[in-house]
């Protein structure tokens, strides 16, 4: 097996495919860089010229409005040219393979691909097959990873909590199907969070997840006790179709975040959610819109974090 495919031999970031395998120092560097961009987004002229003349292709093999939009805004604030492609509705249905599609786009002098795909590992596959000057950013692959989401979550936590080394963080919900949860777990453990908990029914907790360095709880009240950060996961509607869960009502009863349950966490605990939320399924409105919620700031920070990642990958060095 070769080394981490997202680092250059010198240990610099070449692609952003997953949080796993990235040293803490690179994560901190991304967060610090993002910090410098937060002020940019507050300015009247919101643009910096770091990626002027660069072409960034948003390759979305799976529909997404929100993530694609934040990547687009981030790229434009860096002065890059952005091309959006919803491939779910074009070439793939005509039988072109993933790698053919990518090869064709690479031939149009792309500098960066921002990729979302329903299959775990799709971004790794693309990264293995692009030329050395092209950078790949994983914007979500199957159940595997969503590294920029995890990074913006880390940015948010650092913004509100200062440091990672004394925190107790609880991740609640459908961990099994969640690329967000996997990336969050790696980011939190890499940044030195001493206790990461996952909370959910046994049907939604993946096998041997404790090997990723987390404590597993099936009782939400127990899992939330004394938590500093509560990270809720989205529950997809289709999870109700099979035998994973009996109903949305029962899920909310056992694993939905209510003000009452949140009171078990530390009084200054923050509540996060990657969006889009299912109010009344995984979280009640009073909490989502409450004083402890940092869900909207997460979205704002997401742009700065994506600017940081893209500028570190494709910006002029120095």
């Amino acid at each position, binding site marked *: *097996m070769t080394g*981490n*495919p997202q680092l250059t031999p010198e240990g610099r970031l070449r692609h952003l495919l997953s949080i*796993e395998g990235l040293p803490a120092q690179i994560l901190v560097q991304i967060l610090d860089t993002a910090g410098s961009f937060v002020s940019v987004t507050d300015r009247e002229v919101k643009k910096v010229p770091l990626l002027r003349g660069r072409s960034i292709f948003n390759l979305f093999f799976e529909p997404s409005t929100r993530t694609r939009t934040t990547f687009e805004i981030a790229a434009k604030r860096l002065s890059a040219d952005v091309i959006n492609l919803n491939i779910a509705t074009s070439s793939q249905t005509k039988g072109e*393979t*993933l*790698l053919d599609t990518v090869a064709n786009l690479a031939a149009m002098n792309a500098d960066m691909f921002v990729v979302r*795909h329903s*299959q*775990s*590992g*799709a971004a*790794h*596959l693309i990264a293995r*097959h692009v030329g050395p000057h092209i950078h790949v950013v994983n914007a979500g*692959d*199957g*159940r*595997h*990873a969503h590294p920029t989401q995890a990074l913006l979550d880390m940015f948010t936590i650092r913004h509100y909590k200062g440091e990672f080394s004394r925190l107790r963080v609880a991740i609640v919900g459908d961990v099994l199907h969640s*690329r967000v949860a*996997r990336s969050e777990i790696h980011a939190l453990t890499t940044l030195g969070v001493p206790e990461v908990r996952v909370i959910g029914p046994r049907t939604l907790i*993946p*096998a*041997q*997840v404790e*090997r*990723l360095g987390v404590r597993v709880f099936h009782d939400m009240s127990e899992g939330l006790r004394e938590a500093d950060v509560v990270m809720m996961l989205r529950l997809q509607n289709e999870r109700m179709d099979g035998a994973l869960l009996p109903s949305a009502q029962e899920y909310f009863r056992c694993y939905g975040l209510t003000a009452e349950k949140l009171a078990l966490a530390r009084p200054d605990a923050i509540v996060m959610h990657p969006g889009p939320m299912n109010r009344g399924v995984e979280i009640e409105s009073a909490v989502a819109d409450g004083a402890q919620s940092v869900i909207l700031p997460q979205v704002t920070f997401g742009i700065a974090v994506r600017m940081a990642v893209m500028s570190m990958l494709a910006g002029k060095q120095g």
Partner: protein
Amino acid sequence: MKLLIRNGTLIDPLASSQQRGDLAVADGHIVGVGAAPDGFTAEQTIDATGLHVCPGLVDLCARVAGSEGEARAAAVGGVTSVVCPPDTDPPLDEPGLVERLAASARIHGGPRVYPLGALTQGLKGERLSEMAELHAAGCVGFGQGDTPLRDHRVLQRALQYAATFDLSVWLRPQDRSLAAGGVAHDGEVATRLGLPGIPVSAETVALASILILARETGARVHLCRLSSAEGVAMVRAAKREGLRISCDVSAAHVHLTEMDIGFFDSRCNLVPPLRAVRDRDALRAGIVDGTIDAVCSDHIALAEDAKEMPFGESVPGASAVELLLSLVVKFARDASLELPAVLAAVTARPAAMAGLPAGTLRAGEPADVCVFDAGAWWRVDGTALQSSGKSTPFQGVELPARVRHTLVSGRVVHCAS
């Protein structure tokens, strides 16, 4: 035609012995082991000094029939007898198809081909195939390939019917519903990579059903491609009980685990999935104690782009028939086992299990022979394989043992010059 293989280390796995000596072949048969018979004059001589001479390999699962290139790949791998699974296109459910396959194998002149018939028509799992007739056409057993039955009643009937004629039924234990959607062992690596998992219970639930019905019907059952420690334990107990069962494992599973998937290496997308280290170790122990009768290649030649996809969309399987001997010799070295005992798992044991006239070096037997250099190490390079399938999870790995000569019925079908 008289041929003498001189001065090699002769291995007879059946007798678990090795001795230095000559092997004499005349008219397609072995006529002298250790020394040539009196008055034997060789027309052709192979110098086997420093080499091992063993029976040609018996591979219980390799999709090599019907293709000259794949037949050559088998010869390069020292394989002289091959059992072909029935999941060809179309499936082997008619005598005509079986005869055509056998005929094309004869034309290609590679290894002997022993087809498995489809257990059910079209492998659909609904109606039984004409087993008696297919057996008469040359099928050595009946199976479902990689399409497990979903209906226990059909399985029960198929076993009953096969038992009527004492035909063996070859089944890969996999419960369809438990395996549905999965692409990797439901363990640490699948969790880390976000790959949908196939739990061990997909194997053991199916295995329990098969064992119960085998006990009830008295059918002879061969279990294909075990993958889990629990599965090995169940087979061990069933054999102790006296059920007429046998089983095999693929050579890849003797060496690899889920960890080898690394960053989504689709070359490691195999069926059954590569499992945990403890499973791999249990499979190895099963070979050593005889619970597992045979090691097969599970060879399939896939088109090049079959693996150039995200892991979960890539086509499972690997090019393996040319690696079988090396992987078995490597296992012997890793586990500090005697070569004859380990080679039995690719010669005498599978031959006895499938009732094939192969797997031993004895005077009077057909001269199917493999001459190899156990000390020759080589680096696996998929593109250099004879097979049209270039994908192997062992890409770049250094392996011992290279085949120098392969004989089928005394005819040299492979000679590495």
